[in-house]
């Protein structure tokens, strides 16, 4: 404070005394650098008295810090020149000399480049005359800057580094506390009665490390189940069983009904499996068809539209309906909302059916072979199951375990037929009676799988046909009806569906627009 008030006075003296020749060079102390401009002198010193004896007394004070509390220089009437501590006494004049000696550049020819001078200074590792901010007398101290001193670079720790390290410590401490606190919070006792009851068995309330761990696990499980479990507790809507087919056939998509291939020339292409249309249309009369795929709906929906434009597959289910567990998408049939004794799952991956392996028929992947007959060959078995009204499909599927179902089924069918024929022959011997001869070969000719049943069926009597043959006959007729219906009305249906979709889309657009205008409210909506 003292210095501030006195300073103008002191500066003024400098001005008034510059006329006097002084032995010291005209050096201003840094302390005074801000106050070069003198204010209006309100009090002129009456007589500048040079006090010679005091001068030697002041000079040693150069070693002392500039901002000393006593500030003895202000207590005297000494001239500032004599009073100021000499700074950088030796090298300064030489530097100023050097600058002065250089001829001034001719600026009419353009501004000369300073690059050479800079490069020169850098190569000498010296801050030459270009350096304005550093004190040349302390050049040695600055030189050590780039890690070229006697200390290695990482021995220095800047204040920034220190602050950063401190921040890191604080942050990690906060995170650790938060983690511990969060863990304890997650493992706390159950808050409400119903939570308590829900976890009575696996994670009851109470003290103890194991209980804590169990509660944390249960809470996390509750949280992740939203993402891992099927999106809806009932994947298929409730429906009166009398209004639909009694059995449910759940089909996979990729490599069962279709196969996609990629080539550099054509990109992705999807192929339909041979006989897939026939398979779907024929089995539609016995089964409620469900497509259950682990592909997300965004991707699979487009394929499904192409595959099944008439929507013979009744319910499509996508990845959203699967359960994610151990890195696999599992098709959990218990979420299907259907009687599991009447559900058959056909898939190409065993992991998909991990939860209900008894319901699953696992086929090999179809790799695009155009001569493939697996789907069609499977029809008789599936038709038999539904047509004969099997009580529990799981036991039947289990009995076929380890064998190829079409082959094994044909074998069993043959056995059954032989037995039936023997019985029939015995019966005929007892009382010979002939009915109409039913040659079904023409009716059944379309079906490749009837090859096994054909000879015996054609020679059998109309009433001698097994029940199963009659079912098949009826199925064929039904199929032909459907086929005819589709051929006649298919176009119309498609147009209707397209129109309906268009309408729904526009409705949605409209409602969206409405909600937008409502949200960003122009007043006319109110």
């Amino acid at each position, binding site marked *: 404070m003292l210095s501030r008030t006195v300073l103008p006075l002191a500066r003024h003296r400098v001005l008034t005394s510059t006329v006097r020749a002084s032995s010291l060079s005209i050096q201003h102390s840094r302390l005074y650098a801000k106050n070069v401009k003198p204010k209006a002198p309100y009090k002129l010193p009456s007589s500048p008295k040079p006090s010679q004896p005091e001068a030697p007394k002041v000079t040693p004070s150069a070693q002392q810090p500039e901002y000393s509390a006593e500030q003895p220089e202000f207590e005297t009437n000494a001239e500032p020149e004599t009073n100021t501590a000499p700074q950088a006494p030796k090298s300064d004049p030489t530097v100023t000399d050097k600058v002065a000696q250089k001829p001034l550049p001719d600026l009419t020819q353009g501004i000369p480049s300073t690059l050479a001078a800079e490069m020169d200074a850098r190569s000498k590792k010296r801050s030459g005359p270009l350096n304005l901010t550093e004190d040349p007398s302390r050049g040695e101290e600055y030189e050590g800057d780039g890690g070229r001193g006697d200390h290695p670079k990482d021995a220095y720790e800047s204040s920034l580094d220190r602050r950063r390290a401190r921040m890191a410590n604080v942050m990690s401490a906060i995170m650790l506390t938060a983690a511990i606190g969060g863990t304890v919070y997650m493992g706390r006792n159950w808050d409400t009665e119903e939570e308590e009851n829900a976890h009575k068995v696996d994670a009851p309330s109470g003290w103890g490390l194991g209980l804590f761990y169990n509660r944390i696990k249960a809470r996390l499980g509750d949280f992740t189940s939203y*993402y891992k479990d099927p*999106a809806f507790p009932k994947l298929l*809507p409730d429906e009166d069983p009398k209004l639909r087919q009694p059995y449910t056939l759940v089909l996979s998509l990729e490599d069962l009904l279709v196969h996609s291939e990629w080539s550099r020339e054509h990109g992705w292409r999807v192929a339909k499996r041979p006989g897939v249309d026939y398979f779907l249309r024929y089995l539609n009369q016995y089964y409620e068809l469900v497509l259950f795929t682990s592909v997300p709906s965004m991707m699979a929906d487009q394929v499904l539209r192409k595959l099944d434009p008439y929507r013979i597959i009744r319910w499509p289910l996508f990845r*959203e309906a699967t359960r994610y567990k151990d890195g696999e998408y599992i098709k959990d049939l218990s979420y299907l909302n259907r009687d599991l004794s009447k559900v058959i799952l056909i898939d190409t991956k065993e992991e998909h059916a991990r939860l209900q392996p008894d319901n699953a028929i696992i086929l090999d992947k179809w790799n695009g072979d155009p001569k493939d007959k697996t789907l069609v060959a499977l029809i008789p078995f599936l038709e038999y199951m539904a047509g004969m009204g099997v009580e529990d499909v799981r036991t039947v599927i289990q009995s076929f375990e380890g064998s190829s179902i079409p082959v094994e089924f044909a074998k069993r069918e043959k056995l059954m037929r032989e037995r039936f024929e023997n019985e029939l022959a015995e019966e005929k011997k007892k009382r010979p009676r002939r009915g109409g001869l039913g040659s079904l070969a023409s009716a059944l000719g379309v079906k490749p799988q009837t090859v096994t049943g054909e000879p015996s069926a054609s020679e059998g009597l109309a009433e001698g046909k097994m029940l199963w043959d009659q079912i098949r006959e009826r199925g064929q007729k039904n199929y032909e009806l459907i086929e005819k219906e*589709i051929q006649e009305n298919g176009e119309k249906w498609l147009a209707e569906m397209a129109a309906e979709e268009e309408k729904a889309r526009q409705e949605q657009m409209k409602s969206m627009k409405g909600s937008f205008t409502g949200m960003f409210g122009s007043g006319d909506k109110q």
Partner: protein
Amino acid sequence: MDHSRDPCPWVALSDFGGAFCMGAIGGAVWHGVKGFRNSPYGERRIGALTAIKARAPVLGGNFGVWGGMFSTFDCAIKGIRKKEDPYNAIIAGFFTGGALAIRGGYKAARNSAIMCAVFLGVIEGVGIGFQRMMADNTKLELPPPPPSEGKAVM
């Protein structure tokens, strides 16, 4: 089954190209505006063009290297793990971040790898959350009672 992306060895190539395009186009916009604003009046158009020509391909290249490398790592990890889940992307992001920062030394590579893995983890998490939110739209409903709306129901 994901038909929006090519199968594995090729996807690295197409990802590289896609990422390059993204970086180049985004860089053109970004550096165009920047060059325009940082040029004196009268030279703004040429300043913007110069900035685009000088910088947009560089940004595109940076993006492209990132994308191609990520895709390559992703494929490699898929091949090794034989699984398709979000961890593939996270691990691939870890390696990509590490590989791109390896010239900065061990520490820089480690930090960059962790940051990159966290970033991809966040992206995957958001994707899963989004998919779960959209899943509510796929709920199946019974059709209205008269079955004459074009269904091939018997």
